[in-house]
Structure formats: C-alpha cells, structure tokens
C-alpha cells in the first residue's frame, strides 16, 4: 500500500529567469489520493506539467517505480502510464464517446482502420469498471454534461492502463451532486491501485477523498500532511504563510431604501420563473443553489442579456425596460460575469484597455477617445483595487487570475453603478485575492451600492451576504438570513426534490 510509485527528486523549474519551482522532493504512493494545494501561482500547474511531460524540469529527476525517467513530450508520460485530465477537457465534442476514449490507444485496435467492434467492447468494459454503463459509447461527447465528460476522460485513462491519474480542479465547473459521483469514482480508482493526484481549491472535497495533501507556496514545498492532520487552520495557514484571522471580512453597513425590485420575473427558456425580490442600498443579497438552478440566467435577464417572458424590474421605484446591456449600464447596473475569460475580458487588450472597456463608450468626443482621461482612470483603479501588474500597457493575460478578476470588477466602477451583479466572483482565484474581492465589495456597499452575488461557495455566501435566496430548479425556494443560517440549511433547500 505504501509503495512509492512516483518520486520527484529536487525538481526545479524557471521561466525567463524567474523560479517557479524550487527543489521539490516528493513521493507518491501507489493507490493513494494525493491532493496538491496552493494559491494560484504557487507552482501547482507547473509541477503537473513537468510530471505529465509538458515541460522538462530545469534540474532534478523523476523516478517512476524506482527507475529514472525523462519525458520529452506528453506522449512519453502517457506511455509510462501517467494520464492528466485538465480543467479544459481535451475531448472532441463531435466524436463519439468510444472514439474519444480510444484516442490515445487507437493503434491497439487496428493499424490503419480501428475495428469498431473491438474498441466498442473495450470501451464498454472500461465504462463498466467505472460503473457508468448508462453512458452510451455511441453518443457524441458534445451531448454529455461536463460531469459525464470528466468520466469519459477517466475512462480514457483506464483504457490506457494508467498508473497515475492527475486531475486539475475536476469539480470546479460541475454541480455538487456530480462532484460526489466523481469523488466515488476517484475512490474506486484508488481501490484499483491507481494513484490520483488531485488539485482543487475546495478544501472540503480534499478532506473527503485525499489520503495525503501537499501544500506548495511560491514554488516551494511547504509540507505534506497525512489525512489525520487535515484541518482548515493548518492547511490555509500553510497555503498563505500566515494565519488568516478572518478570511471573509464582512463590513457592517446600514441598509437604505429599495433600489431594485424584481417582480415575477420569468424566462422559461432561461429556466427560471416567478422570481420576486427587493434589494436595498448597501445590501449584499446572496443567491445560492446548485449549478443549473437558473441563477446566472436570472442575472443575465436583469442585465438585459436575455429577454424575460413575464414580470418586470423596478429601479429606484420606476419601471425599467432593459433590452440590452447598454441600457442596463445607463440605468446604473453592472455585471461581473462568472467566466472572466469568456465574457469579462478581452485577451489582446492591455490592462488599461480592459479597465476602460465600459468607460470608453462614454469618454469620447465625437468618436475620438479621450486617451489621457482613460489613462488616469486606469491608473486610479489599479491603485484603488491593488491590481498587481508591472504596467498598465501589459497584456491582461499575463496577470494572475485574481488580478484579472480585479480588472473585471474595475471596469464597471467609474460608471457609479447603483447595483452590481456578481456571478461567482471568486471562482478559480486564490484565497488572498478572494479576501481582496470581499474587501472591495465591502467598500462598495459602504458607498450605498447594492450587490447581488451568485455563489456556489457556501462559506463565502454565508459570511459576505446579508440575506440569501436559495434557488432550486428555476424558483426561489426560501429566503434565509445569513447570520442565522448554516451551510447545511442552504444545501438542504438547494437539493430537495420538487414535489
């Protein structure tokens, strides 16, 4: 059980003269689930990329089952039995489940033309070992849910007789119940003697499935702990290097008059109906629930990104007709979307251009941009939100996730919004940056701005908001007071089946 399957000996790596991994020595045991933790930029991804053959280490050695190996390319690692499942899955949506699963091993089923019967059988067997017979090998992957695609990835590793499976934040984009299925799967992989390297920001999951956890910080190995020693306090302080007294600071703000009222808002296509609530100045209203409960769609409808079929919105007591984001912005709404890469930022734009994505529409004279005014604004928000970048002309993509998120927030603030919609504002950013985002939210409500925050992270929902609406299958099922409710209560309401 405690045989070492993979050893890293003094692995170091630097890019452009900056050290990202320093002298990492670490053993992985056969059949263990080993969590790798650390803030963004701690070196987790680089470590994975070295193990999976994407990057060669600058120095140090890798031993696989006692023998030294060196991977020149990802295929070498695959052949050695190390499979990596990345956050952005590497599947072809238009090909069938079976075709995807055999992708790395297609040669085994015929030199020129893979024999369909043979591989379909092998795929069915692989899915059966995972107890996932309900996935039809013939359906195309594009029709599967994200969670099922994860399973297809795992089956791909099984059929390639993987010894080690590396998962990079496998649960970041799937719902709670799906992630439980995934966790069961991981435990069964472990039963089959496969080592799982597991990267996640969700400590709760790590506690549930990991045998050991290794914490990286600033490219250094801080420590490895056994399951028995897991605790929030110890892990978080290892990750951030200091005891966080209060990870989620809540500012107490007096509530003012009602600024936004939503009445019977319904959009059957968007999957929500009869949503009513009122939001007051200085308030942070949380919306909890499972992924797919219609939360993001509700925010999109309020912001004019989708048409609602029924109901209306009142802003400052007056009925507002919001048909597109431009009108929403003019009425004082802002929307920090869930996926900053997809809908928040423009990758070829500099930090400054991204900060001004909204302002540029207003700060121009006869179509000519007021460049110096825009520059001053960018500089002000860089300082105010503590956006860490070398310069404002740097490309946005060179910033860490947390700093990118601050830019995604900054772009709205110059418009003096009355209401800001936050959709999963701290998704995929490290704990330090999270705290900064919460602090920013606290400052905003102090100025009388009202916030709606959709979040799947219960601790954050509980500690940041004043009130929580729990949505389930498109409806608000309960309103809870944040100071008196609990994670369990929210979860209970979010998951209960409809009668």
């Amino acid at each position, binding site marked *: 059980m405690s045989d070492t399957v993979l050893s890293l000996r003094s692995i170091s790596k*630097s*890019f*452009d*003269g*900056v050290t*990202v991994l320093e002298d990492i020595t670490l053993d992985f045991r056969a059949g263990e689930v080993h969590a790798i933790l650390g*803030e963004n*930029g701690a070196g987790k991804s680089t470590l994975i990329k070295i193990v999976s053959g994407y990057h060669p280490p600058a120095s140090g050695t890798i031993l696989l089952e006692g023998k030294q190996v060196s991977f020149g390319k990802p295929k070498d690692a695959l052949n050695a039995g190390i499979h990596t499942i990345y956050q952005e899955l590497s599947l072809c949506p238009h090909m069938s489940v079976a075709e995807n699963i055999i992708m790395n091993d297609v040669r085994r089923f015929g030199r020129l033309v893979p024999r369909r019967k043979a591989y379909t059988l092998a795929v069915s067997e692989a899915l059966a070992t995972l107890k996932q017979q309900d996935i039809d090998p013939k359906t195309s992957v594009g029709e599967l849910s994200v969670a099922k695609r994860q399973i297809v990835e795992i089956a791909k590793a099984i059929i390639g007789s993987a010894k080690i499976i590396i998962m990079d934040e496998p649960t970041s984009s799937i719902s709670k119940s799906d992630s439980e299925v995934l966790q069961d799967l991981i435990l069964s992989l472990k039963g089959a003697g496969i080592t799982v390297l597991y990267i996640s920001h969700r400590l709760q999951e790590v506690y549930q499935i990991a045998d050991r956890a290794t914490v990286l910080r*600033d490219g250094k190995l801080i420590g490895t702990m056994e399951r028995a020693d897991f605790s929030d306090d110890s892990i978080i302080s290892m990750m951030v290097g200091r005891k966080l007294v209060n990870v989620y600071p809540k500012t107490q703000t007096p509530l003012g008059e009602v600024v936004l009222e939503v009445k019977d808002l319904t959009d059957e296509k968007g999957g929500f109906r009869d949503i009513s609530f009122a939001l007051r100045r200085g308030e942070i209203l949380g919306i909890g629930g499972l992924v797919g409960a219609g939360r993001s769609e509700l925010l999109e409808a309020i*912001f004019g*990104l989708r048409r609602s079929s029924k109901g209306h919105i009142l802003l400052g007591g007056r009925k507002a007709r919001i048909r*597109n*984001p*431009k009108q*929403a*912005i003019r009425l004082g709404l802002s*929307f920090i*979307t869930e996926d900053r890469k*997809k*809908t*928040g*930022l*423009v*990758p*070829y*734009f500099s930090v400054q*251009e991204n900060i001004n*994505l*909204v302002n*540029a*529409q207003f700060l*121009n004279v006869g*179509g*000519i*941009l007021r*460049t110096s005014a825009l520059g001053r604004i960018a500089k002000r928000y860089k300082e105010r939100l503590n956006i*860490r*970048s*070398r310069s404002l002309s*740097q490309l946005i993509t*060179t*910033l*860490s996730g947390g700093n990118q998120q601050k830019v995604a927030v900054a*772009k709205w603030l110059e418009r003096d919004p009355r209401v800001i919609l936050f959709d999963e504002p701290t998704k995929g950013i490290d704990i*330090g940056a999270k705290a900064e985002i919460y602090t920013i939210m606290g400052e905003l409500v102090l100025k009388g701005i009202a916030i709606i925050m959709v979040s799947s992270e219960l601790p954050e929902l509980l500690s940041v908001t004043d009130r929580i609406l729990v949505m389930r299958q498109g409806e608000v099922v309960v309103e809870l007071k944040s100071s008196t409710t609990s994670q369990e209560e929210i979860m209970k309401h979010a998951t209960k089946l409809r009668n």
Partner: protein
Amino acid sequence: MKQTLSERPNALSILGKLLVNLRSLIILVLLGVLFTILSPYFLLARNFANVGTQIASVAIGAFGMTFVITTGGIDLSIGSILALTSIFTGIFISTFHVNLGVVIAAILLMGTLMGCVNGIGVVYLKIEPLLMTLATMFIYRGVGLRLTGGRPVPINSPLFKTIFAGGVVGGIPSPVIITLAFLVLCWFLLSKSIFGYNVRAVGGNIEAARVAGINFSLSKLVTYSFMGLMAAAAGFIVSGRLAHGIPTIGETFALDCVAAVILGGTALAGGRGTIMGTIVGAMIMGILNNGMTLLGAQYYTELIVKGIVICVAVVIDNVTRRK
C-alpha cells in the same frame, strides 16, 4: 508579495517582443538590402515613386481589410466591388458627363452600400463572413459583367487621371499622397477612435464586448461598410491608371489585401491588428514585386516567392508569439 513570472521584464522577453513587433519591418529591410545589392536600379528615387504607385490600391484595400480581419471577419468581395464601382465611374463620367466631385462622392457611397450589404448579411442574417462575401463576390462581379457585356468602359476625364494616377505634387505621385492620407485616417480610426476600440474589442472577445454594452452589430456593420468605401477608393487609383472601368479587373485584389494585412502581423483570428503593420505588409509585397521585375524574373516566379514570404512571416509570428 507574489510575483508571477510574466510580471517581470527581462532582456530576453523584451528582445522577443521587439522581434514580434518589428518582424515585418525587418523582413522589409532585408528585402530592400537584398534588392539593392542585386539591382543597381532599385535604390533610385524614381523607382521608389514607382513602388509607391504600384502598391497604392492594395495598401488602401488592406487598410480597410485590417478592420475587417481585426473583427475576426474577412471580405472576399472587394475585388468585385472595385471592378463594379470602376465601371460606374466610367458610366457616370463618359456617358452622363456628371461633375467629377459628384462622381467621386457617389462612387464612394456606392462602395459603402455594397460593403453594407456584406455587413447586413454577416450581422443580421448571421452568414459567415467568408460565405457572405464569397456570395457577393460572385454577385457584384456578375452585375459588372452583365452591365458591360464584359467590355471595358472608357473614362474620358484627364482631370480624373491626374488626380488618381498621373499627378505629381512636390515630386510625390498622387496615388502615394492619397495612400498616405488614408494611412493617417485609418491609423487614427483604429487606434484613437471609439470605432477602432470597439472593432478590436469585438474581435478580441465579442461576448465581453456585449456585456460591456458595446454595440457589436453596429461595429461590424460599419466595418464592412467602411471596407466597401475603401475598395471603391482603391478602384479610383486602378481605373485612373487604366483610364477605363474594367469588369474583369481585381480578381486577386481581395487576397492580395489579406496577404498584406497578414504580413503586417494582424491576427487572422481577430482582435489584434495595426495599420502601421499593414502598410509595411503592403510595402513588402510591393518591393518583392518591383525587385523581382527589376531582376527580370517572370510573374510566375514572383508568385512563388510571394507565397514563400507569407509562409515565412506567419512562421516567424507563430514561433515568436509562442510562450
């Protein structure tokens, strides 16, 4: 404090950046040096005026194409727009004897409308830019051929010829002056105006642009319309030189413009494009053309070399941009 690797500058990455940004300029200079060594005529002022005149129409088309490609689109129809507008130029001037100023305004408007049709197809009918402009490429070309029966239409206006082809101001040929004027205009539009900003935002990430309240439909519509206007303007230079509106002219025009834009470092996928890059791209094409001719190479050989240079430029791009 945490520092990610790319937040710190160093000599190597700065050098890499320079290489990326100046890539087309370096190719241009290398070609210039090469031809200077190989041909005694290359470095003459007369020859430069010659090159400038030759590239004028492609450069103007390529300026418009820079906007289109930056939005993530492409326009194959501009050769047909160029031909059709030049036919109307001939008809207006020679058949109806319309005042030249009115002709110029009317033709530019026609080009704009033809481009606008492309924009409507792309934005409202949601046809892929490649397919929409492929369709109008055939349509506009067909209309021109039917109107004229395939025969050139003479443009009997010495003034028109002087303005767009033959004129010289301070030793600089008029096509070069017109090109420079458009260069300044387009550079300003793309980098200093809200229109250009939105074009880059839409091409870089249309979803983010939408959420930020940018009217992406309008941005694209204006882009294709502007492209049409630029094609008509390029048509003046071509028909001025030939003194005819010719229904079959400009068949490779659109792709020549795309080549100049790509040589200038604009990303075909959209989001990243510069007018200064494009003018250098057009000059590379022009110098290649001119230098090969001076060396007595056949047009056929020239095409082969042109293709190779495009490949090399794109490979340099890919290598230097890879992280």
